[in-house]
């Protein structure tokens, strides 16, 4: 009995050693690239540090008090929140709808899957430029198409008057990833369930309601969280989908309009353009906390309201 116990702890120890051996790179990377920088940033946010300041002193939570009183920051957080919410709706609703459409039993569905996914493969900076020219007021293909079809008589300034729409359109264009996740989800549903429903005489709408939706709910929950988090992290597109006229305007990374001046570009702007290092880090930390809290609340709700075969 005693020797058996000893061998089992021996195996346990070996197992633990192997576990840490294989986790070591990630642990090291997490410490060096995530933990230390984020704590360093927090530490900097408690000082009065500027880009070129010599006398750095500790000021406590003064920067955070300023953050909460800063209307520009509030505006950015609000804009980010609205964008993330709408983008999540697009990713989940359209991604799921597309997955359903290409999951039907017709010939050539593989072809459509491939090409619906394709825009997601285009690098995001290229997406920004392609869409900026697509949406341009004077030379953009969209306005040319709409006026040729007689739908509009005067060119619409998409980038100027509908900036948020254009950034959301980029999200829509890149919905293929979400479609793929949902296709993976649909593939996990056993076909016997549908056969049984056929026997009971259930129609397609009813099958969607009683089989597909409940079975795919964990994927919907997953996609909701991930899309929301990625939406909060939007950075480069608002810079590129800038309303500055293409002819005569400079190609600078100047600040986007209010509706798309999201919080991470705001933090970047504060740190690198305004040189307000400590304050910028305070803004980034507040953003981090907001994302963390929202995700945790969300994860809790999703856990309670989705169907899952696994416990915990």
């Amino acid at each position, binding site marked *: 009995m005693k020797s058996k116990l000893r061998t089992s702890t021996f195996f346990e120890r070996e197992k633990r050693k192997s576990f840490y051996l294989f986790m070591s790179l990630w642990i090291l990377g997490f410490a060096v690239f995530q933990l230390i920088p984020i704590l360093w940033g927090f530490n900097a946010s408690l000082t009065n540090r500027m880009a070129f300041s010599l006398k750095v002193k500790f000021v406590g939570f003064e920067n955070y008090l300023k953050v909460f009183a800063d209307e520009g920051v509030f505006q950015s957080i609000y804009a980010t929140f609205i964008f993330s919410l709408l983008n999540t709706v697009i990713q989940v609703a359209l991604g799921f709808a597309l997955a359903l459409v290409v999951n039907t039993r017709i010939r050539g569905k593989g072809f459509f899957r491939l090409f619906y996914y394709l825009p997601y493969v285009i690098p995001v900076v290229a997406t920004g430029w392609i869409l900026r020219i697509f949406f341009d007021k004077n030379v953009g293909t969209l306005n040319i198409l709409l006026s040729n079809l007689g739908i509009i008589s005067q060119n619409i300034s998409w980038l100027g008057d509908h900036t948020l729409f254009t950034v959301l359109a980029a999200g829509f264009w890149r919905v293929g990833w979400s479609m793929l996740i949902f296709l993976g989800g649909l593939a996990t549903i056993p076909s016997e369930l549908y056969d049984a429903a056929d026997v009971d005489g259930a129609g397609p709408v009813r099958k969607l309601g009683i089989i597909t939706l409940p079975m795919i709910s964990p994927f919907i929950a997953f996609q909701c969280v991930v899309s929301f988090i990625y939406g909060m992290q939007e*950075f480069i597109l608002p810079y590129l989908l800038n309303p500055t006229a293409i002819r005569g305007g400079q190609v600078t990374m100047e600040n986007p309009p209010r509706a798309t001046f999201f919080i991470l570009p705001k933090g970047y702007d504060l740190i690198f353009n305004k040189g307000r290092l400590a304050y910028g880090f305070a803004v980034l930390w507040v953003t981090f906390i907001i994302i963390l809290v929202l995700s945790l609340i969300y994860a809790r709700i999703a856990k309670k309201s989705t169907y899952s075969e696994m416990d915990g």
Partner: protein
Amino acid sequence: MKTTPKTIIQSAFSYALLIGILFVFFLPIISMLSVSFKTEAEIFRSSPSLFPASINLDNYGRALTRLNLGAYLYNTLATSIMYTLACTFSSAMAGYALARFNVRENGFFFTLVLSSMMIPYIITLIPFYLLVKDLGLTNRHVLWLLYGLGGAPFLIYLFRQFFATIPASLEESARMDGAKPLRIFFSIMLPLVKSGTIISAIFAFQWSWQNYLMPALFLSSLKTTLAVQINVAFQDIQQNILLGELMAGVMYYIAIPLILFFVFQRYIMQGMLEGGVKG
């Protein structure tokens, strides 16, 4: 399927829908190609046409030199390949650990890996940049190798799923023969998740190829990647954007990820649909 009038109408409707959606997705691509074939005068005509008057390849020739494609392609490939190799390797190791060694801490680390997805990478990258700058280590491509060694949460998750499907008996017998854990991993387990490795490498490559902020912060204008260079290369002296050449340049920039995608799409589509991601 029987061919009754009803099913014919049904499938005609389905195809109309599928082709309609395809058209919407392809509009921006058509726009890009059309602009890239037009001359600047044609683009800025007072009533521009949808399609170019002729297929004019001048923009592609000029974009090549303006973008200095050779040099920046090298930079982009160097950083992306280093990141891809390191990130795939490290993610495979972590995924293997989480899938195969059910020690007490396993759940904690799995949660930690997934939670790290919630940290916007800009929040960690900016302080990391300032730290690296203080050490005088910026402007080196090898940073991508180091950064990749931290792995990526989604890829770790993917590898965990792939490793979990392999029967335990294979490992057991190797262990009985006295093989060390690293040897088991490299010679038995890793070859068994070939499609998982390909998928992960494609995603890692794609991420690195499109990443803007890291080269913008860490690399000088000569060592930077196409993701940065594409934004500044296409201006004339008055800083007007040269649209035709820009779109041709974008074509060069997106060509490599697109080719890779078409070569390996079979793995991505199959892997993601058959047991890759589970909720």
